[in-house]
């Protein structure tokens, strides 16, 4: 082990001793893990139902990557003593989850088993806006004070290029198509903006994140997001609202919708049969 690495580990141990540091890191990791986990779950519901077979296959890879990122963040939490990663993903109640509400919303009316009237426009917009938000956060996290999280950010970042390219292509083409597609997409954009603020929210822990140099502030992240998105909006002659909403509440503080309750019910159905069993 190199001298530098040794120093870093000692340093890391000291930091975790620091008042409030562990708690702040834990909160941030929960926000990251829960965001990826629930969106990947929503993606998995689309399997077999996408508009085009080739796209079904491509979309599933993105959902798998995203679930993989969630698993990395849950393992970091496990290392910090928060509990078993599978338990964190499957057994926590809605009120204990920290994901943004935008990501938990159902894909559309119906369930994946019965009359799934899923909305591709909403899916494209939500995923594109989310991946761009994730990208600016991950870039910020490369400089976080918590080294294992910085290392995870470097890895996650590798896969975001493709996710961005994929969703941006769909976004640009469907809006650029005009007609009914543009109308549907514009409605989806309006809907997503109503709760986009929740993606950037750091909840009650925002101050602690700043004090511990964990991640840029909400304002900085929003500015970075707008900086990336403005040229795209301009090219499509679309308007971006000044303020992003959080109409359904702030998921970072444990506020959630019935959609999340229903999702947890489904995603933990087998797990709950026997929480001690090995599956």
């Amino acid at each position, binding site marked *: 082990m190199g001298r530098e690495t040794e120093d870093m580990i000692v340093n890391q141990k000291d930091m975790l001793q620091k008042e409030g540091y562990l708690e702040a890191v834990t909160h941030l990791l929960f926000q990251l893990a829960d965001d990826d986990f629930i969106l990947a779950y929503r993606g998995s519901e689309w399997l077999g139902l996408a508009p*085009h077979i*080739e*796209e079904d*296959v*491509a979309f*599933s*890879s993105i959902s798998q990557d995203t679930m993989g990122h969630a698993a990395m963040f849950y393992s970091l939490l496990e290392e910090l003593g928060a509990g078993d990663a599978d338990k964190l993903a499957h057994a926590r109640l809605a009120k204990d989850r920290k994901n943004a509400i935008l990501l938990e919303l159902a894909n559309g009316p119906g369930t994946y088993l019965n009359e799934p009237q899923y909305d591709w426009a909403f899916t494209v917009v939500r995923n594109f806006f989310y991946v761009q938000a994730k990208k600016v956060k991950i870039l910020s996290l490369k400089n976080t004070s918590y080294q294992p999280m910085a290392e995870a950010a470097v890895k996650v970042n590798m896969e975001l290029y*493709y996710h961005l*390219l*994929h969703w941006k*292509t*769909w976004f640009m*083409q469907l809006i650029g198509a005009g007609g009914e597609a543009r109308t549907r997409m514009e409605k989806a954009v309006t809907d997503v903006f109503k709760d986009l603020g929740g993606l950037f929210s750091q909840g009650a822990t925002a101050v602690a994140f700043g004090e511990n140099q964990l991640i840029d502030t909400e304002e900085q992240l929003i500015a970075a997001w707008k900086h990336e998105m403005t040229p795209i909006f301009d090219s499509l002659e679309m308007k971006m609202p000044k303020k992003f909403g959080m109409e359904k509440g702030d998921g970072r503080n444990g506020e959630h919708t019935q959609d999340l309750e229903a999702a947890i019910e489904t995603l933990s159905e087998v797990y709950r049969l026997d929480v001690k069993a090995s599956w």
Partner: protein
Amino acid sequence: MSESGFYQEFEVFSKRSDTSPIQYQFSLLAPNKELALVMAQENFMRREPVADIWVVKREDIRKMTSEERQSLQRIDNKEYRNTKGYGYLKKKWRHYEQDMLDEKEILSWGGKQKT
């Protein structure tokens, strides 16, 4: 298949690494080349490394008919084009106490300087 429409045929090619040649993978349907490109890797190369991808509209490819493929056959009498036709040089050089500069030897010359 018509010139327009969502279901256009694209042929997908890829390179496994920077130094490998481009290789044919399979075909897919997409409304245009941008979407063809963002779907290509995950449809055909989910489990292998990829260094580059090309998508080509099928109608832009001139393929051979089965009759035309007959034109690819040739007689096995062209040793003069290959090293096989010059193998006798080895013996000649031996006479001058020199090694034959064969393919293996020559292609090794571009390698890095041994340290």
